[in-house]
């Protein structure tokens, strides 16, 4: 009622003024509302964003642990899980002169003082060469395989130009051990050994997570290389080769070719030794073939009476005279032929057997093809094709005129002692009872007889130096002259000892071979296998026997009482 009175009382001019004021008030309220709306919208947006971050957006990019732990290249272990080759996340020390990127010198301190400080961290660094490289300002590696502690110390130097990129490196913890079995990795590809043979599996993301177990036993391999190295140095040999083979499964327990190379650092000098003497180089392995010849003759039934005596006077065949290194009397029986390693006697046995049967047995033993093993480098034997003439069969009988790898010989000996089954050798661990299917080459009875004869050679013959007490070693020596230009070289030999142990139930075959041994004081100035390869086996067997589950026992041995009278006076 009051307001009405005022409204009535005010004149027209004042009414207009009130209208203006009202409009201004409305405008101000509108602006307030607008600003409030803008703030509200901003708050809503922020709230929505927070909600979005907390609720909708997925958690930090999730990389599964299996992916992160998958090695860039699969691991290789020995049969007991000892790592032999693994991808090793290491740092490298890289010099990047453009790291500062300010047009000034790349280093804060002088090149010489930086090199001296690096030398304090890496004692094997060539200080002079590093100083030259830093002064020249050329990018490049200063050191590789840097341990994390050393990487921290390099960072503490405070030089931005010294970078530590993380690299996945292939590392062989055992150094040069088993280098020929493992091979090495170059440019991301496996070379030479099992690195090459298993390349697909080791680089396949689906399969490389699980380590690959080889048949090698690291301890046996170490012992074999140690003894071979010792033997090789003591007789100044040019090279050596050795293999330990499981006779029942064909697994290679150790395989060594010396001189070795270092797969961690394959340089030009190392590349010269990459050639594998056990699987790739063929040799005339000489008298180690004689037991195989005798086994073939016993198996064929052409030698039934071991006491039968063969003439030991030089044997003239097709214009060639087969003779022995020294006179062995007028005649020899079969055990004596093996014990004294008579070429003439073996030739007579082959004559009775016949060239065709001789060739067939040698073929059955795998001497006419490359050896069976996973390694890519496998040598082809020197094998005469066509029908063998009588003389060829006789020379093959004592290991000449045929050249095979030491691995061939090992698998053949395994077949001879294990009951007569030939099996291919393998470098992959074999589950017990899952061994490769073999083929029968000899009868079990022949194998049993040969075990007796091999034991007699080690007891009474040329293999006496290999007779490790308690281990019942049996084996045969072989010393073959190396073929040179224009016939055989009289002074350079390949001396081999092919052994099996324990002979009462053979489990392992060992081949030890020295290339061009010299007569030294250690070998009583002899170059033949009885004085270098046989003693090496004699030292090796006690070291590896207990590791392989063969324990020395003086109370047991193979029964040779039925053959002992045949060599009565040779003890």
């Amino acid at each position: 009622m009051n307001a009405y009175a005022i409204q009535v009382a005010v004149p027209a001019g004042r009414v207009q003024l009130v209208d203006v004021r009202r409009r201004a008030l409305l405008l101000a309220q509108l602006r307030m509302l607008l600003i409030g709306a803008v703030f509200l919208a901003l708050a809503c947006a922020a709230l929505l964003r927070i909600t979005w971050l907390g609720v909708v957006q997925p958690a930090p990019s999730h990389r599964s642990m299996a992916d992160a732990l998958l090695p860039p290249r699969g691991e290789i272990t020995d049969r007991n899980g000892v790592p032999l080759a693994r991808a090793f996340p290491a740092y490298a020390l890289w010099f990047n002169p453009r790291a500062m990127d300010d047009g000034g010198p790349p280093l804060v301190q002088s090149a010489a003082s930086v090199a001296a400080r690096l030398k304090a961290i890496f004692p094997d660094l060539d200080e002079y060469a590093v100083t030259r490289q830093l002064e020249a300002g050329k990018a490049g590696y200063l050191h590789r395989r840097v341990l994390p502690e050393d990487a921290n110390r390099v960072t503490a130097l405070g030089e931005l130009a010294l970078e530590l990129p993380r690299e996945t490196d292939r590392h062989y913890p055992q150094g040069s051990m088993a280098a020929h079995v493992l091979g090495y990795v170059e440019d991301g590809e496996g070379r030479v050994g099992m690195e090459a043979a298993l390349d697909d599996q080791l680089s396949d993301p689906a399969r490389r997570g699980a380590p690959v177990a080889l048949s090698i036993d690291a301890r046996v391999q170490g012992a074999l290389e140690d003894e071979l190295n010792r033997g090789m140095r003591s007789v100044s040999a040019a090279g050596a080769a050795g293999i330990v083979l499981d006779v029942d499964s064909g697994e290679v327990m150790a395989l060594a070719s010396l001189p070795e190379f270092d797969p961690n650092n394959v340089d030009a000098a190392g590349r010269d030794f990459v050639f594998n003497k056990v699987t790739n180089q063929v040799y005339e392995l000489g008298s180690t073939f004689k037991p195989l010849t005798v086994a073939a003759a016993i198996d064929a039934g052409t030698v039934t009476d071991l006491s039968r005596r063969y003439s030991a006077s030089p044997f003239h065949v097709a214009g060639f005279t087969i003779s022995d290194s020294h006179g062995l009397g007028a005649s020899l029986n079969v055990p004596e032929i093996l014990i004294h390693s008579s070429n003439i006697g073996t030739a007579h046995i082959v004559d009775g057997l016949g060239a065709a049967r001789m060739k067939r047995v040698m073929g059955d033993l795998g001497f006419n093809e490359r050896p069976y093993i996973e390694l890519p480098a496998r040598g082809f034997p020197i094998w005469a094709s066509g029908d063998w003439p009588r003389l060829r069969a006789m020379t093959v009988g004592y290991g000449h005129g045929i050249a095979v790898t030491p691995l061939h010989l090992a698998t053949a000996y395994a077949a001879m002692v294990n009951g007569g089954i030939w099996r291919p050798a393998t470098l992959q661990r074999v589950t017990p009872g899952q061994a490769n299917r073999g083929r029968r080459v000899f009868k079990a009875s022949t194998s049993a007889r040969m075990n007796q004869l091999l034991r007699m050679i080690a007891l009474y013959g040329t293999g006496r130096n290999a007779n490790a007490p308690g281990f019942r070693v049996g084996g045969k020596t072989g010393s073959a002259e190396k073929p040179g230009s224009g016939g055989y070289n009289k002074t350079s030999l390949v001396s081999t000892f092919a052994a099996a142990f324990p002979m009462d139930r053979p489990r392992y075959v060992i081949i030890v071979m020295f290339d061009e041994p010299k007569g030294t004081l250690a070998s009583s100035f002899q170059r033949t296998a009885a004085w270098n390869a046989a003693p090496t086996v004699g030292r090796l067997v006690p070291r590896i026997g207990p590791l392989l589950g063969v324990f020395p026992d003086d109370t047991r041995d193979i029964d040779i009482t039925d053959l002992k009278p045949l060599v009565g006076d040779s003890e």
Partner: protein
Amino acid sequence: MTPHSRIRRVGWIATLAVCTALYLLLHLKVNAVRSDVINAEREIVALEQRKLLLETEFETRSNQLQLAAWNRVDFGYVAPNAAQFLENERTLARFGTPRPAGAPAPIRVAGNSAEETPAFPKLVSPLTGKPIDEALIEPEARPARPGSLVAMTASGGNAVRIPLGAVVGSASR
């Protein structure tokens, strides 16, 4: 709209708001836990790599060539010979000497471990080969006067259990 239905509607909206808030809290918590898991996994990966590094370093420092070199220079261990191995009890028995004539028989002590003892029965009758009744070998079950050793022995029980403080004989009476 009645005041009742309005209150009900407000109630529903409040419930919905509370539920949504709780759901949001839970979701945030889940995401936080998930982040923790990922962090833990990263830590595991880092530790595994560290383990690999240390293991490789150990294997490298103790490689076969190094061990052989140390053995040559420092230790000189040689392979054990046949006399150092015993295959079984029979080879162990080889070291014993036969008992000379007239020597007393060695004292043999039987042993039995707790695991080998059967829980039941405690005693088997040597005559019938069947388990003896529990009541016969439990002295407490017998109607004998407690404290009297004579009474217990006179009743001809197999097992005698002497209670603490028992009086031997009946001198006190």
